[in-house]
């Protein structure tokens, strides 16, 4: 059995997000091997009823977003699809930056975001993790739940995802300075 088949079986059996580390551990292969198997599994699933949702370090299976209406019709639980203005602003930043500190979110929004981030975290839409590059700070990332509500299997599939980075670079430079000055406060 090839790796992608095994990954598919494991994800199906679990029915909830599984970390890449866990797969490395279970399948005794390298991270790179997992990642390339993920690419081919994603391709194999095109046009199928199941899609593979992936973000950095975590995978899960879900139903094809094109069948949203069909499944929603069968679903008993009510879904909360409402987003307040501040939720929308904050989620957009978290999604398009795909990993962002609270200071950056505050800088972009011009208001304090700690309250809304907690609310979104309770709702399971964003997740706070330790920054891999600097373990003294935290970054907020989109959860697989958020991606599934957006109907995309990865943040990179969001419309305009590739285009934004250039326009943001200039401002990001200022931001870095600003944040440096404020850390003393």
């Amino acid at each position, binding site marked *: 059995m090839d790796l992608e088949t095994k990954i598919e079986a494991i994800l199906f059996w679990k029915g909830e997000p599984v970390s890449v580390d866990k797969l490395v551990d279970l399948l005794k292969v390298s991270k790179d091997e997992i990642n390339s198997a993920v690419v081919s599994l994603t391709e194999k699933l095109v046009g199928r009823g199941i899609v593979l949702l992936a973000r950095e370090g975590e995978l899960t299976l879900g*139903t094809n977003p094109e069948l949203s209406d069909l499944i929603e019709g069968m679903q008993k639980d009510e879904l909360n699809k409402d987003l307040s203005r501040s939720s929308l602003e904050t989620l957009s930043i978290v999604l398009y930056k795909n990993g962002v500190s609270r200071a950056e979110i505050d800088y972009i929004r011009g208001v304090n975001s700690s309250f809304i981030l907690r609310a979104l975290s309770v709702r399971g839409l964003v997740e706070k993790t330790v920054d891999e590059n600097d373990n003294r700070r935290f970054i907020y990332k989109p959860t697989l739940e958020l991606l599934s509500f957006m109907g995309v299997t990865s943040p990179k599939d969001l419309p305009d995802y590739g285009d934004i980075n250039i326009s943001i670079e200039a401002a990001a430079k200022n931001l870095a300075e600003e944040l440096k000055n404020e850390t003393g406060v």
Partner: protein
Amino acid sequence: MDNEILEDSYTVKTPGFEGPFGLLLSLVEARKLFINEISLSKVTEDYIQYMNKLGGLTPTEISNFIIVAATLILIKSKSLLPNLNLTSEEVSDISKLEDRLRLYGVYMKLSENVKNMFGKKIIFAPLERKNETLVFLPDNQITKESMMQFARDSLVRVPKKVFLPEVEIKKVMSIDEMIDKLTERIQSSIKMNFREFAGAAETREEKIVVIVGFLAMLELVRGGILNAIQENNFEDIMIEKQVLIINEDFV
């Protein structure tokens, strides 16, 4: 050109903005302008008027609006009195505001995508599987004492209601001082440059009216600042809508 103050304000229909940038951006966009010093100087009055009308905000929220207002005031002052000297810090504040507003604008455009897509085509996770195996698998970490400790710890991390942080008060108070100094600078600049105002007496008077109107506007901002500070000088006055403090070490 300079009598923008006398013009009717552009109305922003619904409060479709969350913070100061949202307000500012909607004012600029309502006039179909690009973000630059000229457009920002044009919307300064509208911004300050809106700001003073906004009700139900916490002092922290008010201070966010005031901080942006301070930079707008600089931009406006410069446009009224081109020979007013700005410090390098003030110049950098202005360019930073422009950059931040553009950045905010970028994300607001992107937020349209999020708004249009959220909840429309959902990828559903499978329903919770029925418990296949009924087992009892405890863990030696579970004891009466450890559970008590965990419960207590989780309570410690529950967000607390807080007052406006002192930093914020200081920031706002420094803006109050800035307005003081700016008022002085503008007044002396008028005296010094009175004769230099070009053109007929009529135009000259017009200019003075504009500047006097602007000084009155500064007083309005000061009023807002006083409100924000007063509410925080007394410790027994709680922030109306309690703000949660999130301890970054946990959550």
